[in-house]
């Protein structure tokens, strides 16, 4: 048992004061479930809004190459600002109150770089011969985009959604500091009350949510790549 991780795990399981099952039972429906639902809501809404922005911007960036560098520059800077700092900057803007809205704005900002980059990469991955063939069949530009390019780019776009979602679920926990709700509220309450059970409940559920989302979207990504499945057989 020299492995420090295992020693820590042993510590957690052996110290009864670390996990107070009684508290979990009593507050399950009142505290834990709403926090979990709030977290799913925050993450889902943010990724959805980000997609609505990123898809058109990605398509335009793939078409008009000059637009792409400034787009990645701006979204790249947004992406590298630490989340607690971005939350702080957002709530300093007059008229922006603490709560879920600034958290969602920040989470959308973080998703943009990943989603736009993958949309462009997905569209770039479509072979030019395929587009030529579609044009030869008499499809208009719009039809080519919606019936050929986007469906073929979809697996790479979904890969971007997957990375963005996992990232967002993690960052959303910090949003609880500015009253955004979600599982982070359990963690911060646990820190303030010096009550490890709440910290562990929030941390474990947030991790489980991120891993579940990761696996579900990975499944979707594989499902959308039927040609890869065939080739593997």
């Amino acid at each position, binding site marked *: 048992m020299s492995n420090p991780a295992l020693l820590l795990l042993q510590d957690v399981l052996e110290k009864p004061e670390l996990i107070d099952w009684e508290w979990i039972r009593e507050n399950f429906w009142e505290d834990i479930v709403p926090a979990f639902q709030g977290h799913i809501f925050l993450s889902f809404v943010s990724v959805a809004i980000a997609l609505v922005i990123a898809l058109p911007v990605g398509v335009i960036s793939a078409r008009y190459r000059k637009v792409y560098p400034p787009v990645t520059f701006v979204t790249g800077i947004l992406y590298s600002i*630490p989340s607690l700092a971005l939350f*702080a900057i957002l709530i300093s803007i007059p008229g922006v109150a603490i709560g879920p809205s600034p958290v969602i704005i920040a989470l959308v900002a973080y998703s943009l770089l990943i989603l736009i980059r993958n949309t462009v990469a997905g569209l770039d991955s479509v072979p030019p011969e395929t587009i030529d063939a579609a044009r030869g069949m008499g499809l208009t530009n719009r039809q080519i985009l919606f019936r050929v390019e986007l469906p073929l780019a979809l697996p790479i776009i979904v890969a971007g959604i997957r990375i963005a979602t996992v990232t967002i679920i993690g960052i959303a926990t910090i949003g609880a500091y500015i009253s955004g709700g979600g599982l982070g509220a359990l963690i911060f309450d646990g820190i303030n009350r010096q009550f490890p059970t709440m910290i562990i409940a929030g941390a474990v559920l947030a991790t489980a949510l991120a891993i579940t989302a990761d696996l579900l979207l990975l499944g979707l990504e594989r499902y959308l790549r039927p040609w890869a499945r065939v080739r593997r057989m």
Partner: protein
Amino acid sequence: MLSNILEVFARPDFPEKLREHVVLSLVALLVAVAIAMPVALMIRNTRLGAAIAINIGNVGRAVPSLAILALALPLLGIGFASALVALTALAIPPILINASTGLREVNKDVIDAARGMGLSGGQILARIQLPIAAPVIFAGIRTSAVQTVASATLATFIGGGGLGDLIVEGYSERGPEILLAGAIAVAILAIITEVGFGALERAFTPKGLKIAQKRGR
């Protein structure tokens, strides 16, 4: 407002917070490199090792940084040291994933050619695999560095200090200029880290690879 923010930067405790933030991030990053690189080197030739590295990396990516830092509180106690341990744990996955895949993706033909020229295993590692994998390895270190600077902001919640202290002070005492000063300082530090490590990544890309990248475009 601007002059109020500048006043915060002139406060006597500002350099101390900045120093704490940089030390937390830098030490965590160095220890993470010291742990992840030997592991990546050890497992570079085994398929199982690569699978383990990628899975550890993926799970590590899924664990929220706040969760790791908050968990350090009941397990390791309050303060700088437990924040440092948590940040190190957070810094390892990106370095491990990139170093492992970077070393693995070195073209087998190149290694065969090197072996044919009579290079030993150690020479192949030092002269072929590491230089070719360097850009990918440094990309991992850059990702990790930027993340660590961001997560070090959260050290304040477990008494670890750093620039996050200013954000918390400004938020809880409703001092918008302190809040903004802390946020701006952290943001600038993160962007400097991103740009600086990006330059490091380019500096460590072998000349031959740069030519090949240009031709590829």
